[in-house]
């Protein structure tokens, strides 16, 4: 259990919660990233602009924070190459098919006490744990 960081994780989580609350209070929308993203393709014309602005903020904030702490965006990829591409394909299809991801189901859905979101969250968490266990036993993770 090295690198245990419960305080920064809680603080970051609260900011995500605040974002979700703000987007609902102001725009009446669920802050689910996969839903906001998917709507770029299927939503009516006038419903696309705010989505792009949300995604712009999502990209800008980490960049701005690197002025405070340079290592914020120093990230590591334990898995690369073909497996990483496969991961991207699965995340893309899975989140659209399952109508949500960690934010839409995990944060917003559970906060509404939606059984659907609770089931989805338990399912993707379990699938993630199994996948990492497989990677570990296959020797992909060091």
């Amino acid at each position: 259990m090295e690198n245990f960081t419960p305080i920064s994780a809680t603080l970051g989580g609260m900011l995500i919660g605040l974002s979700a609350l703000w987007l609902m209070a102001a725009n009446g929308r669920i802050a689910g990233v996969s839903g906001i993203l998917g709507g770029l393709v299927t939503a009516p014309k006038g419903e696309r602009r705010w989505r792009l602005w949300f995604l712009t903020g999502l990209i800008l904030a980490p960049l701005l924070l690197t002025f405070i702490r340079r290592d914020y965006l120093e990230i590591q990829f334990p898995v690369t190459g073909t497996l990483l591409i496969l991961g991207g394909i699965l995340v893309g299809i899975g989140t659209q098919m399952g109508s949500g991801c960690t934010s839409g189901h995990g944060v917003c859905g559970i906060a509404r006490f939606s059984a659907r979101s609770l089931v989805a969250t338990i399912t993707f968490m379990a699938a993630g744990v199994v996948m990492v266990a497989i990677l570990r036993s296959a020797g992909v993770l060091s």
Partner: protein
Amino acid sequence: MNRSFSALIAGLLFGAGLTISAMVNPAKVIAFLDIFGNWDPSLAFVMGGALLVTIPGYFVLRKKEKPLLEEQFFWPEATQVDRKLIIGATLFGMGWGLSGLCPGPAIASVGAFEINSLIFLGAMLTSAFGYRYISQRNASRP
């Protein structure tokens, strides 16, 4: 304030939360899912912190008639736990475990200018948009 600007604020808050909590780092996410290996439970606190804000916040918003900038709230209406939800969440969880990235962090990590991040994002966007496009086309067929 207009809808785009408030969405930008929500995106900035969301991106800051993902960064401060280290959820943008695939290695951190994989360590969170690595229950049977070198487990780092930190990221459970991200969800905890977010729910701490969204549960009471949504409870209050539920009673309001409309949001600040829209004519209505867009609360999700689906309640059915169906096959699509389970299969989608399973595929998403597999991809999440494989890569250590879900849609929010995948987009937020663009600023890291890391080739692996861009490879993942390309795969994710292609499959997500492709899925949306095809399912919309099929739905509109007579």
